């Protein structure tokens, strides 16, 4: 047994709370799990060495949380520092139909909700999903009543600080005809490990607008996932914005469990220096008449490394599925690396499916043309290379968030260039 995994199991077994029955299942699965190496397909290009080498200082120092305000967003903020909820939910003024509770402090009713949700949507195959099952003691349960339209965006912030390890869990249920916006916003740059997994049960004809901002950089290791179950005629519009760190990995599952659901998933990753980011997405069309559009786009500079694996799985019964998956990459440096692999598994015959992946470089001749017109090199590179990223940011339904992101992504890109 791998040492790192063993200590997770030992610690998980020692925890005794109301989630323990769920934990037991995952611990059992972990006991049988293999520690991934390069021969394991889903971890082929992502090494776990940085995780095994990470030295964490025990104790749970609660750092200062500096939360950046996003102009005009007016969000309902729930702040976690090193996996511990800092916000006092009882002080929040919640709109009608919205119920939020901490995993640490749940009523019987919410326990029932949680029991119905926990690990029901997130597939068992995600090793760190199991690690999170075993170790997460804090997190949120967000329950939205049927027919409730929650206008105010719910923002869940996770901050990792030096030497700390954290595991947190988010469970969200949208009742039928409900709608809500959830922003998962993670950040940290110092040596740390965080896992964060969220499960979303989107009820009949409900609408979820979702953002995951995975902004961990430098030595902040982050492994997480978003897992969505779509009921009949529900809709999902999700955007992932990712930076890279020594080790960053995101697993996304979009599962069509009800017919006529529509999912849109856009992902943007911008990696510089020696950053690493790995995105594995799986679209499951279990039932007929579902629609999915996925666009993942990234820019990789310097010695950075991006891994993209996009799988579309159309089950035998899922006739009339419309599924599209595109991955576009721009490689700015010869030392950078992009491993992209779209995977199609189609078992139904009456479907429309498109997919493709490209990796491009900046053309010298094009750059020369712009320079010869007096445009600076950095501005020329932005014009040539940033448009396809900007396009996805512009597609974000929340314009306040888009406006806040744009200059950050822009300057990140410009810095990538200079190096």
């Amino acid at each position, binding site marked *: 047994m791998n040492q790192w995994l063993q200590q997770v199991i030992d610690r998980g077994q020692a925890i005794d709370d109301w989630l323990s029955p769920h934990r037991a299942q995952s611990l059992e699965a972990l006991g049988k799990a293999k520690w991934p190496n390069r021969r394991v397909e889903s971890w082929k290009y992502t090494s776990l060495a940085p995780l095994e080498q990470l030295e964490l200082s025990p104790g749970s120092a609660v750092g200062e949380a500096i939360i950046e305000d996003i102009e005009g967003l007016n969000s309902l903020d729930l702040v976690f520092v090193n996996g511990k909820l800092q916000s006092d939910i009882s002080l929040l003024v919640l709109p009608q139909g919205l119920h939020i509770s901490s995993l640490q402090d749940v009523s019987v009713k919410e326990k029932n909700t949680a029991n119905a949700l926990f690990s029901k949507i997130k597939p068992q195959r995600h090793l760190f999903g199991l690690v999170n099952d075993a170790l997460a003691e804090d997190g949120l349960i967000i329950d939205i009543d049927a027919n409730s339209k929650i206008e105010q965006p719910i923002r869940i912030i996770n901050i990792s600080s030096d030497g700390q390890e954290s595991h947190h869990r988010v469970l969200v249920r949208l009742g039928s005809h409900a709608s809500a916006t959830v922003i998962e916003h993670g950040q940290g740059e110092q040596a740390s490990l965080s896992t964060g997994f969220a499960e979303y049960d989107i009820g009949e004809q409900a609408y979820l607008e979702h953002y995951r901002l995975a902004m961990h950089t430098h030595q902040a290791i982050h492994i997480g996932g978003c897992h969505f179950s779509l009921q009949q005629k529900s809709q999902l519009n999700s955007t992932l914005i990712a930076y890279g760190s020594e080790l960053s990995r995101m697993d996304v599952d979009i599962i069509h469990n009800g017919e006529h659901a529509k999912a849109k998933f856009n992902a943007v990753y911008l990696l510089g220096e020696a950053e690493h980011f790995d995105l594995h997405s799986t679209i499951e069309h279990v039932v007929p008449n579902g629609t999915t559009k996925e666009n993942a786009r990234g820019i990789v500079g310097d010695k950075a490394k991006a891994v993209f694996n996009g799988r579309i799985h159309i089950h035998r019964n899922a006739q009339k599925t419309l599924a599209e998956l595109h991955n576009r990459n721009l490689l700015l440096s010869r030392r950078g690396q992009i491993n992209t692999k779209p995977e199609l598994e189609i078992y139904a015959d009456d479907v429309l499916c498109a997919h493709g992946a490209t990796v491009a470089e900046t053309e010298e001749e094009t750059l*020369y*043309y*712009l*320079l*010869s017109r*007096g*445009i600076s090199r950095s*501005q020329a590179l932005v014009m040539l290379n940033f448009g396809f990223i900007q396009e996805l940011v512009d597609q974000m339904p929340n314009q306040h968030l888009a406006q806040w992101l744009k200059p950050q992504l822009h300057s990140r890109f410009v810095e990538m260039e200079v190096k």
Partner: protein
Amino acid sequence: MLKINNLHASVEQKEILKGLNLDIKPGEVHAIMGPNGAGKSTLGYILSGREGYEVSEGQVEFHGEDLLDMAIEERAHKGLFLAFQYPVEIPGVSNMAFMKESVNAIREQRGETPLTATEFLKKAKEACKQVQLSLDFLKRGVNEGFSGGEKKRNEIMQMILLEPSLCILDESDSGLDIDALQVVANGVNSQRDGKRSFIIITHYQRLLDYIKPDYVHILANGKVVKSGDASLATDVEKEGYAFLGQDNAEEKNA
């Protein structure tokens, strides 16, 4: 304005320019003619600073400064403009955004305030009209799907907007019908103000019927082999480049 002295240059270790001299004063129009492969485009690229073109000998002075020492964009800031023989297509970048960026980059270097979107649009519309391109061309990707003639007119439009002091036109007439040729010629003539200088690179004398050059130079085998006034172009048109003699013949056999 531009002084080229004994310029030797090569591409991929192959010497193309072999001791070229040229002296251009403000307001002058110089035509450069010569057979295919003579090195006319190479001269344009060297002057604009394209990578891969190595200068092994000689000097180029532009407004009294060492041109060869400047970065590509710096040359543009100082007033040099090259209308390309084969302009590149840049899908995804709108013609409008591209031109606005470039006009304002140059204005900034000249210490002028950048144009607002509205101010720029007004100028761009006028320029479009002048080169007879419909306004749709501003919205399209740079040169994306433009016909050969439309690309050339788009180059002339940029020249008009950027107000350079030295314009180098590399075969801006090739592949144009007579109407388009006149549009290009009118564009150039409208910019002649007694201070702005032009190098008109062309294969045929045709364009020079519309743009009257002060000097005509024949470039062959990497050198100016003959210079004269406008009548030289007419001679070339009649007799071809046969009179170039030995040097050029050798090159062909090499």
